[in-house]
């Protein structure tokens, strides 16, 4: 039996990680179509550059960094294009996805959702999150505080609505 074990492993591992990768992509793009496009492009890049993956680093952490870099590139290009046309930058959100989970993405201020997801949910250290997001550890710490403040406000509104 002939096969390339490293290649088949990375593909299999990427498929297993898809829910996590999509979730991180959603914190960046907010809409599912763009998130799926970002995940697909990042996975393709990871497969082609699999020789560059250092096994001492978790695969998802490497993918988060790839996705963030690709998203930043794309954002710059879109901003430039919209500025050129004199339009505002809007991140669309599908109406049918306005559940609590998605309303959190929509409700958190710009740049807070990815930090919260990486540190509080994925359990990464401030240092790892800072390296993925191309930021300082202090900035990551401050954004986490802001995210928790905003989540506390959202939670109390949610409780009031249900009462």
């Amino acid at each position, binding site marked *: *039996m*002939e*096969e*390339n074990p490293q*290649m*088949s492993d990375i*593909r*299999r*591992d*990427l*498929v*297993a990680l*898809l*829910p*996590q990768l*999509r*979730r991180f992509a*959603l914190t960046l793009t907010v809409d599912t179509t763009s998130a*799926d496009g970002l*995940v*697909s492009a990042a*996975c*393709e890049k990871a*497969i*082609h*550059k*699999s*020789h560059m993956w250092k096994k001492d680093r978790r695969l998802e952490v490497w993918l988060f960094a790839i996705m963030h870099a690709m998203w930043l590139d794309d954002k710059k290009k879109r901003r430039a294009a919209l500025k050129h046309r004199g339009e505002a930058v809007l991140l669309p959100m599908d109406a049918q996805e306005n559940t*609590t*989970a998605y309303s*959190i993405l929509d409700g958190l201020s710009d740049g807070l959702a990815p930090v*919260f*997801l990486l*540190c*509080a*949910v994925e359990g990464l*250290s*401030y240092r790892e999150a800072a390296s993925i997001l191309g930021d300082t550890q202090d900035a990551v*710490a*401050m954004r*986490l*505080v802001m*995210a*928790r*403040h905003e*989540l*506390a406000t*959202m*939670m109390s509104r*949610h409780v009031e609505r249900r009462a």
Partner: protein
Amino acid sequence: MDSSSNTSFDAELSALLDDEITEDDKHRLEGRISADPQLKSRQETIRRANDYGKRNFESMLREPVPLDLVRAIKTTPEPRRSIKLQPPPRAVRRIKHTVGLTVACSLVMFGIGGVAGYLLASRPHIKTFADFTGETASAWLDDVASNYRLFSRQPRHLVEVPASESAHIVEWLMATTGVSFRIPDMSADGLEFVGARLFAAAGRPVGQLVYRNTDGEIISVNFTKSILPLSTPLNETIRDDIGLVVWQGQQASYALSGPSSDAFLETVAKKIAGII
């Protein structure tokens, strides 16, 4: 407490929650919190907000992943390696067209035609063009996929013989397919053996062992007398929403079928290939 000291305290609480604080600071902070009910209440608010966010983000993992995404990853081609091959030196030989050469070529062509005719006549099982062109293997896989699509969606009629009659399953399928096999115990991998069924694919009898995973999805192992080329390596293909991992054994061809979104089909196939 003014707003700036509030923010600074919240930053410390946040760091405490993430375990990003030194042991000394941790003890100092915990001492302050236990002495002041207002600070304790503030810590509780931040902790609850954190849990609220985590719960909502965790619920996103339960959403189904689009199959197109799975397919796109599984079918991404391997990176090309640039290898420069030196073209071998080619000796240019001119052939003279003579009457003798023409006669010799004609005889060789006549011989090849005769041998091909003899081989075809001596292999009566080659009846169709598909047999002749080697498309039988592809037709076999199509039939296996169709069978999986049909039966995996009928939970009440999944198998013909249940798992409780394992001895009969082995005897029955060995006699019908001509393939000797063992029923792999995959319980350690979360696969419960449900039973077996017999069906025809590409005109051949196929034995099918049916398993169910912890998510209730059906994974089946299909085998028939050798139909794939001997050199077939273990590889995965996708037919719509069905993933197929095929391989060639000593005396039989095998195909593991399951949902294409299952990331571990290949791992399961490897394990089964070593047991069956």
